[in-house]
């Protein structure tokens, strides 16, 4: 089982102020069924969102009258297959009432979760959402029959138009445990005195390793048998309550199918990535950051902070250097986080949330699955890879979505070695343009892609264990809802800043210490002979490499003033891209993957950078 889920073995449910007698109403449903629309309508503006401990999964909670409403991540079933399920599982197990939102078009799939929660004995109301879409697709549902078969209230809704919401609210008072399987319930009853609650008994019987460990009860797992029996019950309910005389294919479905085929999918993906580059790489990284970092932070905020520090420490001495010097803990951290990272991270999360909500992201995963499987990953890994071009630190946290520690290691290492972050990419592009673009840019791109592939192939061979396979459901294509995209962006950005800010402070402190002790200069001196003799670059280029440790773009920017020729620029850029990731991402890698892994990546990237850079220099000399 994955390490990320293992970090949160117990259940610190999000704390919400709840008056005595308040019910915990938990929203549960498959991904993309419109749960958040219910949550927003029921709870209004005063909502608390927090990351579930040890995960990147956000949990929202709010109030409806005296009751507490909790939203959960979209899941297909309750168990511990991934972070989303772990989080949803712990919240569902403590629910007083479950509001299960199901997609009327895909009842065969959605009712499995419904029936599983009914088997847990938790009182429930089913919101039969997208009732209009089902009708349009030729799916006829007998709501009375569905309700009587499940033995819980079923309310048809159209969440995007808020239709049926009042009826759902009223029905919550009538929530009741539905019809389970008597034979299964007998088996659960036999376990109850050992596990405590019925939901726990069910998950123990379904061989959930975490609930078994938590309750200290382990029995011979019967997951396959229980799942198959539940599947039969669900199919019987669907057969009785749903008719689909004829299914129609609309334009969205046809477009959705075309997007996973290379002929249409690859050009559309290329266009999408190009558009992202124009928005983030050119506009945000250039224009916006130029203003926030240059004008605002360096123009006003830093001088003010330096003045404030100076009044306390005086304008010279070690304390001043550490707090407000070149890598000042106060000055550099603030500029870096607010001036540079914040605009980039907001822009990235805005675009990624839009892609996610439109249903396009899973299609990118499908399209890239084959390529990714060649390097021991599956299509899902495309998400952290794309984010890596924004910020390696942010992307490293996102590797938590991958299915195994093996895949997380491969993805983390690939990004740390071979993917330039947006800050660095901006300077790289400018330098390539200065080198005359064309051939040099092509050579740079080709070398980086080659190295990326080779590292991936090597890691896939060397690392023990087995990677997981792609098994995802493609949601229909939809227009994203701006409010949802904005909320997601806001919370993801806030969580990111909250989680990493301390690491940037620590990074600045470490660098200041290296500088005041002279270690930084020593390191530059150490690299100089290698830089001149092996790479054929001026000795000052070694400063640029070491500065890359501070911030990858500082390093690349340092190359501007050296008056390098075309080949030298190529050598320098290849070397600096492969060279160690910035200090904040190193600290995050250490937190996520451990010390040994981080050391291997760090020393590996120093070695690889100089090795490949040297080979490129020698080859270019011959050609």
């Amino acid at each position, binding site marked *: 089982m994955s390490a990320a889920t293992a970090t949160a073995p117990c259940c610190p449910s999000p704390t919400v102020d709840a008056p005595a007698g308040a019910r915990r109403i938990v929203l549960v449903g498959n991904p993309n069924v419109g749960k958040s629309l219910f949550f927003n309508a029921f709870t209004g503006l005063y909502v608390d969102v927090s990351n579930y401990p040890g995960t990147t999964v956000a949990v929202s909670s709010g109030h409806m009258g005296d009751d507490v409403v909790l939203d959960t991540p979209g899941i297909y*079933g309750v168990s511990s297959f991934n972070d989303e399920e772990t989080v949803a599982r712990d919240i569902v197990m403590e629910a007083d009432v479950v509001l299960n939102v199901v997609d009327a078009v895909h009842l065969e*799939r959605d009712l499995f979760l419904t029936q599983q929660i009914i088997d847990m004995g938790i009182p429930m109301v089913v919101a039969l959402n997208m009732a209009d879409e089902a009708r349009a697709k030729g799916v006829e549902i007998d709501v009375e029959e569905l309700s009587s078969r499940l033995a819980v209230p079923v309310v048809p809704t159209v969440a995007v138009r808020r239709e049926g919401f009042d009826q759902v609210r009223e029905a919550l008072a009538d929530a009741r445990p539905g019809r389970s399987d008597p034979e299964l319930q007998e088996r659960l009853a036999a376990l109850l005195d050992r596990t405590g609650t019925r939901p726990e008994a069910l998950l123990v019987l379904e061989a959930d390793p975490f609930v078994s460990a938590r309750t200290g009860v382990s029995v011979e797992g019967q997951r396959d048998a229980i799942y198959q029996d539940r*599947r039969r019950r669900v199919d019987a309910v669907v057969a009785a309550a749903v008719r689909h005389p004829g299914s129609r294919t609309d334009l969205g479905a046809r477009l959705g199918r075309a997007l996973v085929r*290379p002929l249409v999918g690859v050009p559309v993906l290329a266009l999408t990535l190009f558009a992202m580059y124009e928005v983030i790489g050119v506009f945000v990284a250039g224009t916006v950051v130029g203003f926030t970092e240059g004008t605002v932070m360096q123009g006003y905020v830093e001088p003010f902070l330096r003045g404030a520090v100076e009044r306390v420490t005086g304008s010279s001495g070690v304390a001043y250097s550490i707090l407000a010097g070149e890598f000042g803990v106060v000055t550099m951290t603030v500029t870096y986080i607010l001036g540079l990272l914040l605009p980039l991270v907001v822009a990235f999360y805005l675009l990624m949330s839009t892609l996610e909500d439109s249903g396009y992201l899973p299609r990118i995963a499908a399209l890239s699955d084959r390529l990714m499987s060649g390097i021991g990953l599956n*299509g899902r890994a495309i998400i952290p890879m794309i984010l890596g071009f924004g910020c390696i630190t942010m992307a490293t946290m996102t590797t938590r979505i991958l299915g195994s520690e093996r895949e997380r290691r491969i993805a983390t290492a690939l990004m740390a070695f071979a993917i330039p972050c947006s800050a660095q990419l901006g300077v790289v592009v400018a330098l390539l343009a200065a080198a005359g673009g064309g051939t040099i840019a092509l050579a740079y791109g080709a070398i980086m892609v080659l190295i990326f592939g080779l590292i991936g192939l090597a890691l896939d061979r060397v690392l023990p264990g087995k990677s997981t*396979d*792609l*098994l995802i*459901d*493609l949601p229909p294509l939809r227009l994203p809802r701006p409010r949802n995209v904005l909320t997601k962006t806001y919370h993801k950005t806030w969580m990111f800043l909250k989680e990493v800010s301390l690491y940037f402070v620590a990074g600045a402190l470490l660098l200041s210490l290296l500088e005041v002790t002279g270690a930084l200069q020593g390191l530059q001196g150490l690299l100089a002979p290698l830089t001149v003799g092996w790479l054929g670059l001026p000795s000052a280029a070694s400063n640029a490499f070491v500065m890359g440790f501070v911030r990858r773009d500082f390093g690349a920017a340092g190359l501007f003033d050296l008056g390098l020729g075309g080949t030298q620029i190529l050598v320098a850029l290849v070397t600096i891209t492969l060279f160690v990731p910035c200090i904040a991402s190193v600290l995050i890698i250490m937190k996520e993957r451990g010390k040994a892994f981080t050391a291997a990546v760090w020393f590996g990237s120093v070695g690889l950078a100089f090795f490949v850079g040297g080979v490129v220099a020698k080859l270019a000399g011959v050609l």
Partner: protein
Amino acid sequence: MTLLDARPGRPVRILKIADDQARAQCVRFGIGEGTIIDSAETLPLGPVLVRHCRQEICVGRRLAGRVLVEDAVGA
């Protein structure tokens, strides 16, 4: 034969899914051993696209090679 060999556009019956977690996940999607799915198609340069009850499910090729199926035309 396996899912990889299924002819596009034709229904097949799932006989065996030789992976514990994938088998459980498929049952949740509505596909168990014995289920007849609408169609399975290996996408060029991509995974296998399974259609079942208006759903589209992507199955990585390695996993698809561990799913045994038989022709279900006329079944």
